[in-house]
């Protein structure tokens, strides 16, 4: 029974990692943007959630109504103003520019909020749990996060495969130059893509803030986990990202069950093992 419990907790943790990774998966899949600032943007969203809840008295869940559009606007402006100019010169320009953005966000948050830990208070749901037959107990909040991850990916799939905008995203992802010849305004489309990616980053950030304490330096480890989930799942495959997150969560849960010090290490090792066997991840849909 212990192992079943561990696997369930690991799988739910995976939903959380998948949620971190959705925004990255989108920008990586559509514009091949290696966004080093992704983790810091998640943390930034948590801080925006903090300000919104403090100023308006809104419940953290509801604060997303304001956090999401703010992050959308930020994503649109970042892509339009900065990142679009970096997409033609290979790997280094976007890497460097997003490194710069990452450092600015981290230290900006440090200036404004200090190095202290913060937290979004959601109340009873944080600690509530469901008791299942067989002595299993499942936290309600991890279950909600997992459901949000699945719903987010499902809605993105609808966007990608059922709308004009989604068709344009897929076209640009497959072949940006040809898509432009067919009359797509790539730069504007990229700006929408990062904007939408940031909506999911906003959701991830607020849920992250409810789940654990956060500080300005919390970004890089979220980034690494998100990257691992995206790459394990395969480029351009949203359901793959969910599976990538679950693989990571399971590996970490199993590692932690063997020795608490091994949790993060086990996740990294699983990631490397998968990459060595399948350098493009498990289910790649787009070519790099």
């Amino acid at each position, binding site marked *: 029974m212990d192992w079943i419990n561990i696997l369930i907790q690991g799988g739910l943790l995976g939903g959380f990692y998948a949620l971190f990774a959705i925004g990255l998966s989108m920008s*990586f899949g559509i514009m*091949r943007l*290696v966004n080093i600032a992704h983790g810091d943007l998640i943390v930034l969203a948590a801080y925006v959630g903090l300000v919104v809840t403090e100023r308006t008295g809104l419940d953290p869940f509801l604060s997303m109504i304001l956090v999401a559009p703010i992050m959308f606007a930020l994503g649109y402006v970042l892509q339009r103003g*900065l990142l679009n*100019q*970096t997409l033609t*010169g290979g*790997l*280094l*320009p976007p*890497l*460097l*520019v997003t*490194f*710069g*953005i*990452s*450092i*600015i966000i*981290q*230290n*900006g948050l*440090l*200036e404004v909020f200090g190095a202290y830990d913060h937290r979004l208070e959601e109340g009873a749901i944080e600690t509530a749990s469901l008791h299942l037959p067989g002595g299993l107990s499942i936290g309600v909040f991890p279950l909600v996060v997992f459901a949000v991850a699945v719903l987010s990916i499902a809605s993105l799939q609808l966007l990608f495969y059922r709308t004009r905008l989604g068709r344009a995203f897929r076209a640009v992802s497959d072949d940006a130059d040809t898509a432009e010849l067919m009359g797509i305004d790539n730069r504007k489309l990229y700006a929408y893509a990062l904007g939408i990616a940031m909506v999911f980053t906003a959701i991830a950030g607020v849920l992250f803030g409810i789940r654990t304490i956060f500080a300005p330096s919390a970004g*890089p480890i979220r980034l*690494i986990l998100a*990257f*691992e989930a995206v*790459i394990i799942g395969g480029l351009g495959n949203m359901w793959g990202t969910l599976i990538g997150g679950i693989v990571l969560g399971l590996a970490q849960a199993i590692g932690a069950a063997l020795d608490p*010090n*091994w949790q*993060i*290490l086990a996740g*990294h*090792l699983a*990631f*490397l093992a998968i*990459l*060595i066997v399948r*350098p*493009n991840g498990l289910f790649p849909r787009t070519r*790099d």
Partner: protein
Amino acid sequence: MEAAVETTRVERGTKASRIFVFVALPVLVALATMPWWSDSGNVRLVGEMAYYLALAQLWNLLAGYAGLVSVGQQAYVGLGGYALFYLTGPMNMNVYLAILLAGPFAGLMAIPISFAVFRLRGAYFAVGTWVVSEVVGLLASLFAVLGAGSGMSLTPAILRQISPDRDTRSMILYLGSLGISVFVFAVVYLLLRSRHGLALTAIRDSEPASASLGVNTFRTKFIVYLATAACTGLIGALIFLQKLRISPEAGFSINDWTVVVIFMVVIGGIGTLEGPFIGMLIFIVLRELLADYGSIYLMLLGAIAIVVMLKAPFGIWGWIIQRYDLQLFPVGRRLVLTPPAQPTQK
């Protein structure tokens, strides 16, 4: 009578490079004698500049020439540092011998690591190298003999092996950092001027094209990766010899040993030998001027990186080359045409 023909010859040096030698040599002599004429604060700063420059030249060789954009070089800094602390501490080895072994040890570790990361390309390679160095750092924090999460310290007895006298010791450490910087620069410069350098420059310009012209791209990149890892490990040993303490967090810090170095190389000019010098100087000057402002200084550094990347994607030296065709460390060959000689009267 012979026809008057244009003769050609191949030249490697440039006028600027020949003049520069006469500037650089006295500067180097001045730096090497610095402990005798300057105060210890300045000497320490120049020592730090020296090892940052060495790290920057190595990353430049890796990313700028071999196309291996690694964000995991901190793995080798940490490995070199830990090798020094482990060999001198638990293994009781002489400190000089331990420093010499730290580099080869890091190079040796790079072999299994390269089997994993060399299967990856581009962004995947970058993320892969980062994850590998996280793994190495986490492993270091698991071993009790390495001090686990809190790390290790150098005992006074080990320091006395370098030299019993404190001033002599800091002089030796300074000359060590200066020496490694000159050594790394010489290795990179000579490598780039050699046959392999031609291959590397070709890979930098286009990997598929150089492969189709018969360059063994895998072998060339593999050699560069191992050599870079070994040199980075040696520098890591020297850095932590001066810091006296190492912990997984400090040894495997991506910000201290890779991000800062990438900034230097890219701001200065990637794929040139002059760029890392300029980038390192800008970084150190900014830090000395603004370090008191803490996070504001780091934000400014980030902003500068963004602006340089957008306005001068080849860095400051790249921008200068475009305008003035200036080369201080020429690695290429140029064809010089000599006008036909005047026919001599018989």
